[in-house]
């Protein structure tokens, strides 16, 4: 799985961090999401899919292999 985060779209809702803390974090100054791991391990895939599904700004795209 390849994860792409579009920071320009992010509205800092924090939904991705709530869903997958190992894969997403937020910038301290404005809460914009930060991608920690663009190729997360298999056990994180469900959480990352959930993060992408609930992102209100459609800022996370996934390429599943």
């Amino acid at each position, binding site marked *: 799985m390849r994860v792409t985060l579009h920071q320009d779209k992010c509205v*800092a809702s924090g939904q991705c961090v709530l869903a997958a803390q190992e894969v997403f974090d937020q910038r301290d100054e404005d809460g914009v999401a930060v991608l920690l791991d663009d190729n997360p391990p298999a056990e994180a895939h469900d959480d990352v899919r959930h993060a992408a599904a609930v992102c209100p700004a459609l800022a996370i795209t996934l390429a599943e292999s």
Partner: protein
Amino acid sequence: MTDTLTDTASDTGPEPGYPIDRSPRCPFSPPAGLRELQATAPLRKVRLWNGSAAWLVTRYEELRALAGDPRISSDILRPGFPQVSLGSLERARRQTSFLVMDDPAHARLRRMVTGPFAVKRIQAMRPEIQRLVDELIDTMLAGPSPADLVREFALPLPSLVICHLLGVPYADHAFFQRNSAALLNRNSADRATEAQRILTDYLDGLIGEKLARPADDLLSALATEQVATGLLERRDLTAIAILLLVAGHETTANMIALGTLALLRHPDQLDALRATDDPARIAAAVEELLRQLTVVQTGLRRVALEDIEIGDQMIRAGEAVILAIDAANHDAAVFSEPDRLDLGRDARHHVAFGYGVHQCLGQQLARVELQVVYGTLYRRVPTLRLAGDPAELPYKHDSIVYGVHELPVAW
């Protein structure tokens, strides 16, 4: 041909009025009339208070598609925008926050305030929120029973928390709580406009104090880093301050009181919640109560910028659109048996905080407050019960945010 699409609108007869009151017999679910529309005409024109028409969107999938669609505007000043009440346009002409602006202005202003609401910074506030919850419960238990849970607990907690975060003196709580409630009332335009003026004067004065003597709080940071440097107009900060103060306590307060009422009316669910101290189960309970109760009851208001074809309908450029998040959170296609309160279900994809770029920026704060409240109150007060007839409770039918004005409880 597209005219036919609009005109046949899957139904005949006059447009139903919106919003619709919830039934006192079914206070935890969206109004029956809304569910009917969802089942028979999920994209339907409705008639608003001023006689204007708006498309009402009641199904989850279409609601999310439209809420995330850049061809939809949140600009309250744009012609065709479905005003929520008499006076709301006049108030918006005087003052608007980024809640009712489009990008790029919205994004620029929103990002100035999102930092302190990030997940980890809110998580760091949990011990302080726990301390406040414990203190409020101590005080309530030391007083007479029965008591009004709204006044003793549900309203003070989020007010204390947002005051602390913004740097608003809690000593002024009776004043700003009264005016916040007035601002959200749909049926009293003059009083709402007066409340806007009063809160504007109050917060503008407070911003002046923060500029002169900055403290360690969000309003001081915004005043010194954004206003003093010319990046933000002082009047825009006042609008932001009103938004955060009002949204920061009214919504959560209603979730605390209405959530408690819902749990007291569903003792099996309350017992299960009381029996656990597992943070994951408490968090799941919060999401389910957010979904079930969806206290924002007048929909997300939008206006189409272009023609949008959706479902079997055509929304024309300039037409008003209302996204009924309460109905969408009870869409059986997404949440099975949607009217059943089931604290064990996975409800994390609800839209109680909205959807799209305007999704609630304080949602992580609301979550932590509710997790601490629901995880503490019923364990510390195991005999908590309703002191009165549930059918007689004063429900907030005339407010943008649903809830109860009072909740008499005994223990």
